[in-house]
């Protein structure tokens, strides 16, 4: 009885907040419900006939969830938090607004995961990676891993745990578990020459000795082995082999699964998106999808908003890549390197809670390839000056650098400097991305994200 009353009240708030135009209205009703009756989330999840799948990671949870939605969309009616509202309140909102869904598909904030797992009793949990990210908010990797370990130990033995075998801390969470799917890359041709500066879990989870890598693919993700105690990457259940990266357009690879092997062409750039595709594949398999459905879903995928997006602006184009932590930003840099670095770049750094208040992470990003190639860089956002220092201390000439804290002015200047038919590269942090996108919406260049479907 209580559930009904609270939920209609909360649903009303959502309608009001959208009607009032304060942006998406994505978490307000959930916040209300979460406050009034947090246990209602348990009941809302329990009424989903096909259960709930959760996706968490430092990087890639939004894209991975969107891929799963693409694969499973024809099979299930989804309760999916595609706006990225991934805290408990956002999840409550999603469950509230989709009363007739069959399956819950929820990306979950790393810190919120234990409580969400306890409440929704998921059928599948997919854990992607742990990178250093917003240490002011999340604390150290080990602490997150410890919280995850506790949460996983309470997971029902009939539920499937999907883990990235290439991340030592994450892979270890599935140690000894019967119902687990481990995914990873299996193509040493694409390994980086060495670990990057910001590589995190490079010491053995068992004995503390340094891992040696047969192949390091993204940050500390790769095929690792500890020479001291022999601890190594577990065998892969789901793998990508013979990977071809097609610059900014796509990646093609052999998708190896327990259900067979198939060639996939994923219309997204970057090795990190191959990881996301593997996580989506393993999760979809655990939810009874066929290999054909998976190949079709991945092949027709389009990027989650702002992660990698091309926006037409008259006779120019904006290429937007979200940066939010060293590992993610390094991959954005690598993507631009492979596709050709635009002559003019706009890089925007905010320091609100969702961006992380501590901006020191920009010094851990290997921006250097961009600095070598770009002709002009505009730094913007509330902490534009910090970016300016990052680049000038790396040797980038101050005469090629402009400091324009206002995003609107910075975008205008960037487009002024971009030739007709050319492309402006934009790398914003999370709230700068939302603001830049709002500017693009106000100019009629893109639709607001809550009207989009994947």
């Amino acid at each position, binding site marked *: 009885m209580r559930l009904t009353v609270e939920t209609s009240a909360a649903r009303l708030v959502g309608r009001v907040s959208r009607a009032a135009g304060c942006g998406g209205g994505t978490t307000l009703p959930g916040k209300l419900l979460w406050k009034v009756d947090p246990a209602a989330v348990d009941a809302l999840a329990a009424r989903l006939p096909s259960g709930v799948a959760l996706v968490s990671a430092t990087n890639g949870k939004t894209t991975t969830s969107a891929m799963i939605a693409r694969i499973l969309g024809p099979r299930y009616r989804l309760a999916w938090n595609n706006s990225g509202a991934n805290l408990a309140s956002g999840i409550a909102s999603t469950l509230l607004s989709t009363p007739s869904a069959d399956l819950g598909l929820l990306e979950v904030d790393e810190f919120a995961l234990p409580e969400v797992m306890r409440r929704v009793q998921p059928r599948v949990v997919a854990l992607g990676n742990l990178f*250093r990210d917003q*240490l*002011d908010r999340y*604390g*150290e*990797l*080990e602490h997150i891993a410890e919280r995850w370990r506790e949460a996983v130990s309470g997971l029902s033995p009939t539920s499937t745990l999907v883990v990235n075998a290439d991340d030592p801390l994450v892979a270890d969470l599935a140690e000894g578990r019967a119902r687990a799917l481990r995914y990873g890359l299996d193509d040493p041709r694409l390994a980086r020459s060495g670990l990057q*500066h910001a590589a995190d879990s*490079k*010491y053995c989870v068992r004995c*503390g000795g*340094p891992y040696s890598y047969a192949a390091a693919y993204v940050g500390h993700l790769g095929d690792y082995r500890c020479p001291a105690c022999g601890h190594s990457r577990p065998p892969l259940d789901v793998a990508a082999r013979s990977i071809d990266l097609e610059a900014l357009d796509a990646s093609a690879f052999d998708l190896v699964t327990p259900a067979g092997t198939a060639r996939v062409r994923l219309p997204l750039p970057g090795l990190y998106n191959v990881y996301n595709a593997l996580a989506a594949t393993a999760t979809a398999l655990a939810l009874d999808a066929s290999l054909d459905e998976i190949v079709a879903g991945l092949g027709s995928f389009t990027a989650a908003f702002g992660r990698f997006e091309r926006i037409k602006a008259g006779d120019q184009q904006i290429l937007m890549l979200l940066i939010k932590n060293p590992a993610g930003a390094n991959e954005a840099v690598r993507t631009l390197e492979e596709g050709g670095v635009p002559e003019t770049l706009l890089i925007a750094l905010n*320091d609100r809670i969702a961006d992380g*208040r*501590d*901006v*020191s*992470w*920009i*010094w*851990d990003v290997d921006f250097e390839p961009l600095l070598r190639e770009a002709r002009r860089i505009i730094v913007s956002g*509330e*902490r534009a*000056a*910090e970016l*300016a*220092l*990052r680049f*000038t*201390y*790396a*040797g980038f000439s*101050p005469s090629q650098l402009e*400091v324009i804290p206002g995003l609107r002015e910075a975008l205008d200047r960037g487009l002024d400097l971009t030739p007709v038919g050319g492309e402006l590269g934009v790398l914003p942090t999370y709230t700068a991305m939302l603001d830049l996108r709002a500017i693009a919406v106000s100019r009629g260049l893109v639709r607001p994200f809550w009207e989009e479907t994947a």
Partner: protein
Amino acid sequence: MKIRVAHLYPDYLNIYADRGNIAVFERRATLRGHELEITSLAPGERLEPSAFDLIYIGGGQDREQTLIAPDLAARGEAICKAVDGGTALLAVCGGYQLLGRGYRGRDGSTMPGAGLFPHETIAGDKRLIGDVLLEVDLDGLVTTVAGFENHAGRTLLDAGAAPLGRVVAGHGNDGTSGYEGCRVGTAIGTYLHGPLLPRNPVLADWLLGQALAHAGGSDELEPLPDELERLAHAVSAGRARSRGGR
């Protein structure tokens, strides 16, 4: 002039953008016609600290700090001797803690330190996180220092020990004393990262000056324009004033 720099455990202690501090030393020295020669030290490697003009040690996550702590503690005497002889030293966050007498965990375990700084660190319940602004007096050179802190340890200075500065906004060493960091001669320890030096060029130049003096040169450094540095400092100081801890 050549400035010899020892960077301690860069593979382990690098969590808060420590390489930014090294980049600042390097560029500000180069712009004045000096050259930085950086030696990275891994656990177990031989090192004679007094053969260096400047020693840098950054911060790591708990696990990495635990891995290098015994190695650092064993070098305590040599590091103290080097600082006695005028070698400049900057220790940030974890490095600052481990150069004290030791770290006491919440489970009662103790990790011995190198004993350079007269302090002891005790694990606290709540992490002290946020923007910080300090007022610093370096032998008559009065300036402000702006940065970001994120530490569970409460560092308690011995009576009579010299802090790096007075906390204008933020938590500081222990959240209650009103002081931050520690200074022993040419050595500075602090919780402030961000990283520390890009937006605090006065502090960077003071350390470079000490290092140059040890190398046998003059500690005078010609001024640089530092417009971006001042802008970043002002924004960071404003953040501390509006939302620093305490």
